[in-house]
């Protein structure tokens, strides 16, 4: 009996290496354009979109099927990154997969879970210059280009027009000094001293107040010579000191208490939508939420304020990514869909109108099919701005952002002394670099 159990356990132990890592032998290498092969084929497209948004995406797929009648696309929505990981691992990945979590690209690309598209791009002579630099940055991990964009998000500034007018402010702030000044002038307190209306909430880790979105306001950079360089770029310290001064003006506890009653970000009780905050940093998609949930709100959009005048007009750009997973059975047909959804001008304009996301090519910005909305146009300009920036693609996902945010939470709560800020940032760099090294070392 004992011997039988031991044998069983040994067999289990021996089988482990076979059970891990999925099938590395699957071949999805590029074979160039498959437009010549018109054998009918059905491909599977996994995306994270649901309900209304999936219906919009399906209109783009219908346009693709019209152009490539021999390719039928089975569109499956509500797919998370975890499910894609599991499918790649199990060797039953779809032909094309899309995900919101751009942070994951480093791991997917470095591991080969999403195949390198460079050979296909070269074979089809696809002009990558049709995408702005930001998109080219966040769809590649070093030399490996494993993703194509599926629309994009650009981050800018929203302001409540009646509140600004009431405070005698004529337009949105253009500099961070103006932002701090306007924030104070727009803030209203209750008789007990608690906050009623906040001009601008400076606490990070709230709504879209996260370091990657704020960094472009100061032109701050994440990496230096392949390593985390937060302490080496004085822009981060400048940003954090500016932020802390404004937090202290409000009172940290008061801001936290106000935030707790401010409503969830993606709900009709969003603080900007209900007029509880006069100015926020947010993505272009907020225009759609405002139109649907609070059409009565009079608001304006603008590029976010900046610390240096030449940065004005730029912003943070990111977006949904699509790739060909390892093990895809119809990678050639999948590549056609990928290329179409990323570059077809008319389709991009239609998808942009439906999803209120930024179309991902430069040409599609001028498409006559694009709905003419001045509030949305602000984000098209930010997207096309040469100084707009994005986040680094790393193998450790968003771990660098998490470690930085953990430090910022302590800083803004007043638990890090001003004289210790630089040392604190150095320690964050140390942790990020250790994580990068632990993940396998190489940083593209």
């Amino acid at each position, binding site marked *: 009996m004992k011997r039988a159990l031991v044998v069983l*356990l040994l067999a289990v132990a021996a089988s482990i290496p076979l059970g891990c890592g999925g099938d590395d032998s699957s071949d999805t290498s590029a074979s160039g354009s498959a437009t010549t092969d018109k054998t009918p084929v059905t491909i599977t497209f996994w995306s994270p979109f649901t309900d209304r948004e999936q219906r919009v995406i399906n209109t783009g797929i219908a346009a693709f099927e019209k152009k490539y009648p021999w390719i039928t696309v089975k569109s499956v929505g509500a797919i998370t990154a975890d499910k894609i990981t599991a499918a790649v691992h199990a060797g039953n990945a779809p032909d094309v997969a899309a995900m919101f979590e751009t942070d994951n690209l480093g*791991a997917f690309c*470095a*591991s080969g879970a999403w195949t390198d598209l460079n050979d296909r791009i070269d074979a089809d002579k696809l002009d990558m210059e049709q995408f702005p630099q930001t998109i080219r940055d966040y769809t590649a991990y070093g030399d490996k280009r494993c993703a194509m964009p599926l629309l994009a998000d650009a981050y800018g500034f929203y302001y409540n027009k009646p509140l600004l007018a009431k405070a005698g402010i004529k337009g949105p702030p253009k500099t961070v000094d103006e932002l701090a000044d306007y924030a104070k002038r727009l803030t209203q307190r209750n008789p007990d001293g608690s906050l009623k209306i906040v001009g601008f909430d400076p606490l990070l880790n*709230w709504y879209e107040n996260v370091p990657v979105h704020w960094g472009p306001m100061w032109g701050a950079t994440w990496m230096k010579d392949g390593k985390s360089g937060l302490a080496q770029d004085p822009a981060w310290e400048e940003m954090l000191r500016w932020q802390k001064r404004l937090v202290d003006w409000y009172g940290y506890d008061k801001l936290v208490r106000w935030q707790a009653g401010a409503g969830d970000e993606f709900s009709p009780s969003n603080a900007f939508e209900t007029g509880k905050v006069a100015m926020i940093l947010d993505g272009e998609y907020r225009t759609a939420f405002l139109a649907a949930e609070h059409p009565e709100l009079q608001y304006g959009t603008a590029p976010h304020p900046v610390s240096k005048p030449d940065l004005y007009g730029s912003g943070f750009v990111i977006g949904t990514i699509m790739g060909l997973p390892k093990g895809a059975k119809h990678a050639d047909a999948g590549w056609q869909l990928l290329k179409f959804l990323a570059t077809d001008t008319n389709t991009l304009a239609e998808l942009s109108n439906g999803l209120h996301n930024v179309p991902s090519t430069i040409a599609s910005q001028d498409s006559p099919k694009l709905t003419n909305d001045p509030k949305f146009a602000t984000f098209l300009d930010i997207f096309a701005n040469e100084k707009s920036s994005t986040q680094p693609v790393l193998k450790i996902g968003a771990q660098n952002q998490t470690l930085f945010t953990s430090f910022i939470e302590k800083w803004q709560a007043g638990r890090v002394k001003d004289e210790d800020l630089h040392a604190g940032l150095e320690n964050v760099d140390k942790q990020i670099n250790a994580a990068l090294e632990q993940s396998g070392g190489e940083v593209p």
Partner: protein
Amino acid sequence: VSSTPVVEGPRVLAGPVRDRRRARRKAARRRRALVLGLMSPWIVGFTVFFAYPLVSSAYLSLTHYDLLSSPRWVGLANYRFLFEQDQQVWPAVRNTLWLMVIFVPLQVLFAFGIALMLTRARTGIGFFRTVFYLPALAPPVAATLGFVYLLNPATGPVNVILGHLGIEGPLWFNSPHWSKPSLTLLGIWGVGNLMIIFLAALIDVPRHLYESAELDGAGPLQRLRWVTLPTISPVILFAVVIGVIESMQYFTQAYVAASIATGQAASESAVNLGYPENSTLFYPVLLYTQGFRYFNMGYASAMAMLLLAVALTVTLLILRSSRLWVFYQGAGRR
């Protein structure tokens, strides 16, 4: 069985003896096959859900494994990173220790206290038993969402009531000092399962022991100290061991509370986990984050192996110490 003497010559009885032995061996084989057959559901379950993950985790802890490609052997590198470089590990360990030292004893005390009161109640025992048990039926996610709402610093009913009394309520889940006490309140509220076990144990304490103690002049506190506690001590041991193991696996409530309390969208990134200021970053939360958010499953496996070793050690220590304070009636030993 084998002591049967063989007195006749071997040549004459060699055949029948061999046959008998063969028959015995066959019967033994059949018995073993039957035992194995009857045990096979357990063997399959044990192998698939326990032995395989355990051996697999031990192996993966010695590799770099990103969930997407084959594991690569790195020896003890993950353990070195765990002990020497990862600055998030020790806050996570401290938070988990907090649960073990404060949360678990409070939970046990509260469950015991409620059960004790229920044994004294003269009327409405069924009603109160149901009332105190009901929260245990609430799914952890729903219960946590409810508590985050109740303890919302700005709009939550608790702070609103405190405000009417002239008290400025704490920031609860939004404060690093109050987040763990808030989770403790949630844990105490849902203590029904443990309460029922204590109630059963208390009802089971022999009446004659109390009567003897009373005749000897023991008061209520003395009866509790010298009769009740020793008699139900095996149940207390069970509650402590289970509580400590559960505290080392504490995840769902911390995950939900941190994600919701920030007011940010529920995102798949790990930015919110541990909010506020890593005060809810418990060891399992960090392990999950490393394994499933940072594609660092090799390292997460090393963390899991350490957790297993610590859980085993702590459980063994509690069991060893139990010799001093647990009384087993049936076995008649301390």
